[in-house]
């Protein structure tokens, strides 16, 4: 009978304390009853093993005695939990972006990447942990959201919104690129420039260096909006307007960069788009100054390209926005989802 005692003990360790002894006594009595019915006289070890195997592991047996709704966060609270967690994470991202922006603009000290990452990861765990804890307590107190009780009127259901789905993958790529640029601007500003060859030193671009806070601010705004878009999953009037404004701000920043670069180049006496290449000596290596000019011109071309791309994108967005407004006001027909 030693095996039965061990089994009952193992089950008991995982039972609710309140009626543990009672369940254990009943389980033991039942096991012995079953054994008696199956064997004549003293049961063999094989018979006991067979019976216990049939009953199932102690974990399984113990679990069947716990109340059915044994959840950290149950199915009734889960949708609300997901929504709250989403909001909390959104607020978290926005707060972190704002803090990062403040640090970039006001802090003159170099930023320690490890320290910063550690802080963000720590705060992220705290945020998720607090939400989980609050909901676990609500579950424990058996608080149920008002999803079953009460009268409801189907006529109060909100109108179906036309969904202009966002391209999540594209947004993730956008955020990643923005984060990489921010990281470079924050942590390796001494690497932004032009290299003549792999062994030469880096020739810095003075215009970018002086515009870093503005560039980062523009990128942070962009990330913030992209995060909201990923969370919402589709375009809404608010996000469209915000995205258009953010793009206009990016255009402004690019214009500042371009004008700065132009002014700097004019100061050095190089006005034409490819004047530095034209000034290259036929043979022999160009001077460091000339390489710096070439680098500035390369950056200028990059700024122009970026400006054109973002302007086209912004015009398209404004067009879509106006079209959406017109569609909304002119008819109630259901449009197929549009990839925006």
């Amino acid at each position, binding site marked *: 009978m030693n095996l039965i005692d061990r089994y009952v003990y193992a089950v008991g360790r995982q039972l609710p304390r309140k009626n543990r002894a009672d369940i254990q006594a*009943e389980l033991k009595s039942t096991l012995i*009853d079953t054994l008696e019915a199956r064997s004549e006289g003293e049961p063999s070890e094989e018979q006991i093993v067979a019976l216990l195997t049939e009953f199932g592991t102690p974990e399984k047996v113990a679990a*069947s005695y716990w109340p059915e709704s044994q959840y950290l966060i149950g199915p009734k609270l889960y949708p609300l939990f997901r929504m709250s967690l989403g909001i909390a994470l959104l607020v978290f991202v926005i707060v972190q972006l704002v803090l990062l922006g403040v640090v970039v603009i006001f802090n003159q000290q170099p930023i320690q990447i490890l320290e910063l990452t550690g802080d963000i990861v720590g705060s992220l765990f705290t945020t998720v942990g607090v939400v989980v804890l609050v909901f676990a307590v609500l579950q424990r107190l058996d608080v149920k959201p008002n999803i079953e009780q009460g009268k409801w009127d189907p006529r109060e259901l909100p109108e179906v919104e036309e969904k202009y789905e966002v391209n999540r993958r594209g947004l993730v790529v956008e955020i990643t690129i923005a984060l990489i640029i921010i990281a470079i601007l924050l942590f390796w500003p001494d690497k932004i420039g032009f290299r003549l060859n792999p062994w030469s030193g880096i020739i810095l671009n003075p215009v970018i260096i002086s515009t870093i806070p503005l560039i980062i601010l523009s990128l942070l705004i962009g990330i913030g909006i992209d995060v909201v878009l990923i969370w919402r999953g589709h375009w809404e009037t608010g996000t469209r307007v915000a995205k258009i404004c953010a793009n206009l701000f990016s255009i402004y920043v690019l214009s500042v960069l371009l004008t700065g670069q132009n002014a700097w180049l004019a100061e050095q006496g190089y006005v034409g788009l490819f004047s530095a290449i034209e000034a290259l000596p036929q043979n022999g290596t160009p001077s460091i100054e000339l390489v710096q000019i070439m680098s500035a011109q390369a950056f200028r071309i990059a700024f122009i390209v970026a400006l054109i791309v973002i302007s086209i994108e912004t015009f398209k967005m404004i067009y879509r926005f106006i079209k959406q407004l017109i569609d909304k006001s002119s008819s109630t027909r259901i449009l197929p989802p549009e990839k925006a």
Partner: protein
Amino acid sequence: MANQTPLSETQAKLTQELRRGVLVLATLSQLDEPKYGYALIDRLAQQGLEVEQGTLYPLLRRLEEHGLLQSEWNVEGNRPRRYYVISEMGKTLLQDLKVDWQQLASVIENLLSQV
């Protein structure tokens, strides 16, 4: 459909759900006289309803928590056993459930006859 559950697994799950649904009715119907756990399992098996032991005992406790059964330890005989018997509330509920079941069974019978 790459992640489809095998048919046998689905069938086992659905059969289990069906049996679980009627187990309360079967249990209440057999407890007009006090019975201990194994005796009830044995009785149900004799009537053709095989029940897993691991399913029945927790169910008995839940029914008791809902006031449908009463139980007490009986120390007569060679060792103590917990005996369960249907309560007055359980009896009333059983009558209602019986009517529901008969209606449901006749509807399902009718539906299945068309298959």
